[in-house]
């Protein structure tokens, strides 16, 4: 399957490991990613807050390029912010012909035109779990991540493009949980999985950012997670690069490595840590990864609940 690939700025800098691991894993899953030529920044969260018109034009330029260069019109973005911005611009251009016209007037200056709705943008996780599917992924697993306790962290941007067809449950998504289980790891029920990492608050308000990051680390530590797995460069950066700051700020001592899901997929597929950019993170993942067992841990038989205990609600709906 061939996709247009929009890496976004982060994947060229702080999230190089994400790019590297995505590119290493893709061919194993039969995915071919062709980078959109001459792409530009999506504007992240800032530009849209300052000037919406300029922001949509900035984003739509990428959609126009993708439509021009990529026949089937399917674009994949590994970064949650890029994914949200690309989808959002397309959605609002479909909804408002007036906006589409203005955007296209701007694009015309660069001899470009974008017909709203021609490019379908997906997040990398979506392509992997939906287009490839967990069954096909399970077949590729050669070194299961036995014994590794993983806290799946989605962040807020991937699940909340409220205008789109709902992607998983936006309050309590489970698709990354399922992927991690497929890789053989143990998944902790991470209550803060869709909470905010603080975004660019680190540059605006230190107390707010530190508290938001602390909560996530604290919660993962409470659940005895060996590491947090993410799908967003912003989340990874805040939790990883600022972990030391949090420890100094609050007098805590967290050492929780933050890896991308593609890095864990690569490990499970038998690739070497070096091929996946593991080792470039601030909080070293080595100690956590050393815990991976060669054999599946023997599962303790679930204890019979005591006689007086009340049954838990069934999974199905009522009626």
């Amino acid at each position, binding site marked *: 399957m061939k996709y247009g690939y929009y890496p976004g700025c982060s994947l060229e800098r702080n999230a190089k490991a994400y790019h590297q691991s995505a590119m290493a894993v893709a061919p194993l899953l039969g995915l071919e990613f062709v980078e959109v030529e001459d792409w530009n920044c999506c504007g992240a969260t800032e530009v849209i807050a300052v000037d919406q018109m300029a922001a949509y034009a900035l984003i739509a330029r990428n959609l126009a390029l993708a439509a021009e260069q990529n026949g089937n019109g399917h674009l994949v973005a590994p970064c949650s912010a890029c994914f949200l911005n690309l989808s959002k611009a397309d959605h609002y251009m479909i909804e408002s012909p007036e906006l589409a016209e203005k955007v296209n007037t701007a694009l015309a200056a660069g001899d470009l035109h974008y017909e709203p709705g021609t490019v379908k943008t997906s997040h990398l996780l979506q392509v992997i779990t939906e287009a490839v599917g967990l069954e096909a992924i399970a077949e590729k697993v050669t070194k299961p991540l036995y014994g590794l306790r993983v806290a799946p962290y989605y962040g807020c941007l991937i699940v909340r493009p409220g205008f789109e067809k709902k992607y998983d449950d936006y309050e309590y998504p489970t698709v990354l949980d399922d992927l991690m289980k497929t890789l053989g790891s143990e998944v902790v029920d991470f209550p803060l999985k869709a909470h905010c990492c603080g975004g660019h608050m680190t540059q605006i308000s230190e107390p707010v950012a530190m508290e938001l990051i602390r909560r996530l680390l604290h919660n993962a530590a409470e659940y005895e997670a060996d590491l947090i797995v993410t799908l967003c460069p912003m989340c990874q950066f805040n939790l990883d690069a600022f972990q030391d700051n949090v420890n100094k700020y609050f007098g805590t001592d967290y050492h929780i490595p933050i890896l991308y899901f593609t890095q864990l997929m690569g490990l499970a597929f038998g690739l070497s840590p070096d091929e996946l950019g593991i080792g470039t993170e601030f909080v070293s993942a080595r100690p956590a990864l050393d815990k991976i067992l060669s054999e599946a841990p023997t599962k303790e038989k679930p204890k019979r609940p005591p006689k007086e205990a009340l049954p838990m*609600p069934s999974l199905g709906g*009522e*009626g």
Partner: protein
Amino acid sequence: MTEERIGVYVCHCGSNIAGVVDVEGVAEWAREALKDRGVVIARDNKFMCSTLGQELIENDIEKEGLTRVVVAACSPHLHEGTFRTACQRAGLNPYLCELVSIREHVSWVHKDKAVATQKAKAIISGGVERVALHEPLEPLHVPIHSSTLIVGGGIAGIQAALEIADSGYPVYLVEREPSIGGHMAQFDKTFPTLDCAACILTPKMATVGSHPNINLLTWSEVEQVDGYVGNFTVTIRKKARYVNTDLCTGCGICEEKCPKKVVDEVFEAGLGYRKAVYTPFPQAVPKYPVIDVDNCTYFEKGTCKACEKFCPTGAIDFEQEDEVIQVEVGNIILATGFDLFDARRISQYGYGRLANVFTSLEFERMCNAAGPTNGEIVLRDGVTKPESVAIIHCVGSRDKNYNNYCSVICCMASLKFAHLVEERTGAEVYNFYIDMRTAFKDYDEFYQRVLEEGAHFVRGRVAEVTDAARMPGEEGKLIVQAEDTLIGKQRRIPVDMVVLAAGLEPRHDSKEVAHKFGISCSANGWFIEKHPKLDPVATMTEGIFIAGVAQGPKDIPASVAQGAAASARVLGRIQQGEIALEPVRASVIEERCSGCRICNNLCPFNAISFDEEKKVSVINAALCQGCGTCVAACPSNAITGTQFSNEQVLAQLNGLLMLNVANGHGAVTEAERVPA
């Protein structure tokens, strides 16, 4: 030119019409301009519907020899009957009277007086053209069968059944579950008086069970409804109980000996267990158990039969089969109740994931002395008493993501829970609400009482319930996070237990049931009444009535009132012995019918069937409500409707178009008037 003598009567409706339409001018115009179209008299009156107004028409019919009457007033929904009856009193066939609406269609929707007046004239012109083609019609009289079918054995259905049966008429009460009692039987206490629910319900249940006029069909479902008001034939499937009720004494030994224990998702709301052979609760009516074949070891593996071995009367019958019966009834009352909103859908409240989050129905069972915990309020471990409890209101109600309506009962039920928690555990109680809705008798007094007992109230919708501790004191607790909109701050309140006051939803199969009985559901899925204020228990289908929550969320007193109201309507019908049906009906012109059957499934009242021999569609005149859908849909013009034939409708259009109403500016000059 018509030879009819037509009278036109224009109503002021106080200032409702006269405030916008020049009523006197319209009457004068009708007198002059419509003279050559058969109008011999045109009058206006402050209230045509008043006795004086009606007498005006009656006098003119008698003295002026009117043969047709056009009344220009409100919607036919309101006063068509009034004016038809007035005509009838004066000896004119009531169907020779036409009511045209110049209130709903003109004065209430227009501001420009000149245009409104002109439009009123056009509408009267249409009515005059139409009425000339009206034919005298005679109503259809059909006998009413004195038996009644009631579907649903909750409190609304029970009340309706008892009212009718006590009046001496037979009732078939059909209930899907093994026992009657409905949701009320699951409750412990009822608000605001805190009566024990079972104490007030079970005597009624017992009466139903032994009533000579009630044929109780539990563990049964209606499969098909044929016929029409007064003469329904209902097909009912009595599901196999695998228990011979002639032999069973209800001793309960089978249940005791059954080795298979399963979670009871229905009566115990998932909080407790039952056996594979069971009666849902000790006071069940009837007392006979049923075997749940999906969980019975014998049906799964072919061995066990413990129940059969121990049954002292040999009542277990594994060979029993479903029985399909047909009953004849005159009227039907649907009291099918509700399903509880599935709280799993709001994932951030953690139901199904966090052990100590409960639904309101689970909590009802927990409080019930006959429930899984014998009335002890405890955490999911079955032992620990909570020291603090949060009750979250409006779960799935008043929320555009789920149901936009208010579920009515949850505020009061939550107050009841708060009281019971306080009384039985002394725990701190936090109610998270949007608005407190404690209307109706003694309800607000109960709210005051619970406030005085010390329950806390936080106004704000809860953002999430989590076990992720963030601050000291939160460890091991469920933390309820909400914006307290009264102090304008976020609050995190750690508690041991959370109760979700889940909303009421239409039964999952309410749309199918509505279709089966030929009635309609609102967009939300509740059954639609004939009129939301003035006819709340009848439906648009003659002979089908609704009662209880199936019509919309309501509490026990309101459900009982509706059950009684529906039965009063049915009893009135039965005592008349026969019913006069509107002769406004569609019929098929057989020579033109191609047998395409397009009309068959369009009929909202199931009135059209297909005659396989003649290969034509046939309309049952008693079932037809005269809606006209089939007339419009028929591709070969083979269906015609009395009182809405093509000729009549085209004549009305023609009359409307004789006047030029809108020229875009509002002003209408005499010159623009198309001469009649």
